């Protein structure tokens, strides 16, 4: 394939009032995003928020109902072929061919993206090495662990050196070790200057990897900013005080309000968002002691997506902790299971 390269100034990814419905379900209800080249953008939201739909539109898999989406200045609806040549996608489920080895999966991707055979082979070996798959490279991907599949999926997305990369929930379903490994790989890619849009249900992940974060809910962006900006709206630490009864909890909530936003949860506990966790903890314990409110439990923790949601929308993200599949996901999981069963 002959290609020539036209330079593009301006944001690498631009999304304006994007809308998408599936029958009566409104998946996207007017999304706006702008991602400068060379930066990492995180789409943070619970299951069903519209993250995957946004990624599928940006990667030309799906047509939007309304609005515009551009990648490197190219409209994804009008010039899908040119857009495809400049993007890499690792979807929510590792879409590697189970009957092919890692090396064959990479060869197929190199072939389909029009790479010269020799350079595709060299690139494949480099990626195998880098993603720690060289030892398993001759085994069919069906025998891989979840983490290995995800790494191979990412390697496949990088074969043609795309300037823009989309990662849809790259670490969902991985154990902490696998998640840490993948984070390091992603950080290396980012250091090389790639533009990256990643979706996640984990605040910690967005915090670690993304320069800017958009919190999405019901197909809308409900907040956007850097991780420190979002946390400033939230308080950086949460102190959870369990009390004996609802009356005590109500009193405690009033007392703790000056430390930061305080909420009663499960009737008898109070959660306070504070900025300086250690100092606030000490003061809170002293105050409660003075007021003769004996706490049953006191816990201190980092805010989660659930807390972001509670603060931004006044309700909890349904999938607290994040990994529970929604009905859509389950349908796919079932099909995938059936496929494996048949093979």
């Amino acid at each position, binding site marked *: *394939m*002959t*290609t*020539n*390269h*036209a*330079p*593009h*100034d301006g944001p*690498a990814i631009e999304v304006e009032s994007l809308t998408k419905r599936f029958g009566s379900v409104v998946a996207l209800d007017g999304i706006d995003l702008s991602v*400068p*080249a*060379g*930066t990492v953008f995180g789409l943070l939201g619970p299951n069903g928020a519209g993250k995957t739909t946004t990624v*599928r539109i940006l990667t*030309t*898999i*799906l047509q939007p109902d309304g609005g515009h989406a551009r990648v*490197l*200045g*190219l409209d994804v609806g009008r010039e899908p*072929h*040119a857009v*495809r*040549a*400049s*993007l890499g*996608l690792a*979807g929510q*489920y*590792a*879409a590697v*061919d*189970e*009957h*092919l080895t890692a090396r*064959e999966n990479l060869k*197929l*991707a190199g*072939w*389909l*993206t*029009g790479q010269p055979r020799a350079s595709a082979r060299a690139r494949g070996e480099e990626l195998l090495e880098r993603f720690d798959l060289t030892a398993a490279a001759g085994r*069919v991907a069906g025998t891989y662990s979840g983490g290995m599949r995800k790494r191979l999926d990412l390697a*496949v997305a990088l074969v*043609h050196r795309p*300037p823009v990369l989309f990662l849809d929930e790259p670490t969902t379903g991985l154990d902490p070790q696998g998640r840490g490994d993948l984070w390091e790989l992603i950080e290396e890619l*980012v250091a*090389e*200057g*790639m*533009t990256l849009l990643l979706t996640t249900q984990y605040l910690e992940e967005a915090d670690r990897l993304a*320069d800017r974060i958009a919190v999405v809910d019901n197909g809308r962006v409900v907040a956007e900013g850097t991780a420190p900006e979002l946390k400033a709206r939230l308080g950086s630490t949460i102190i959870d005080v369990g009390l004996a009864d609802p009356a005590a909890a109500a009193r405690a909530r009033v007392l703790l309000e000056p430390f930061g936003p305080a909420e009663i949860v499960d009737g008898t506990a109070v959660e306070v968002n504070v900025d300086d966790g250690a100092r606030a903890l000490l003061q809170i314990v002293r105050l409660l002691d003075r007021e003769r409110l004996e706490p049953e439990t006191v816990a201190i923790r980092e805010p989660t997506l659930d807390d972001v949601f509670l603060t931004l929308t006044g309700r909890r993200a349904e999938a607290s902790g994040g990994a529970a599949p929604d009905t859509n996901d389950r349908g*796919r999981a079932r*099909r*995938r299971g*059936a*496929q494996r069963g*048949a*093979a």
Partner: protein
Amino acid sequence: MTTTTFPATVPVTTERSSLVKAASDTMAITWRNLLMLRRVPQLLVFSTIQPVLFVLMFRYVFGGAIRVPGVRYVDYLMPGIFAQTVAFGSINTGVGLAQDLGTGLIERFRSLPMARSAVLAGRTAADVVRNVLVVALMVSVGFIVGFRVHTNAAGLLAAVGLMLLFGFALSWVFALIGLATANPESAQAAAFPLLAPLVFASSAFVPLKSMPGWLQVLAAHQPVTITVDAVRALVLGGPTLRPVVQMVAWAVGLIAVFAPLAVSRYRRAA
């Protein structure tokens, strides 16, 4: 925060290369599907067990009771068996596509700068190669149970060619079904009630004359009968031009209708 350090570039494909690219993409997908055949050879074995059983049953159990004037039953039977094998084998196209939809592979293909037609063309092309193996195997089985070609090697080769064309045409029908159901089990289930009447209410196993009159009319004009009659003419002798032309017309017609439908369904498949 990092600012622009990566060369933000826009690759542009030229028109001239797009046909070459489409051919190359089709080859890539064909290669991948054939590798799969090598990795899971059971698929090939299972799809030939049923026709082999039919050969044994009709040759040695029912064959004695079926009289076909002017020809040994085993010679009459084998062209029917070839058509049956290829017809049921073409379900494979739909099942394979449904599997690729389910695993998200097609989703990835749709994000790649590849020809839209390649996933379907590569799948049907690989299924033609698969049919070469299957038909060769069934011809060998035929020879073992006493089947003989009355014409010559060229006749047999032409017959094999017709079988492959027949399989290729049906593959497009099942490509559409596989994409529409998006589920391997459903694709399989939808295929059987469609194929069974075509294969069994045909001249594949018994002469049409043994059927009731109304059924004879239906059976005489459907593609399995026409294919089987063309294959018989090529390997057993008799006028070949008319049945072969009819058969090719059927195949071209099926492809002309179902290939565009399947491709448009592929474009929309989510």
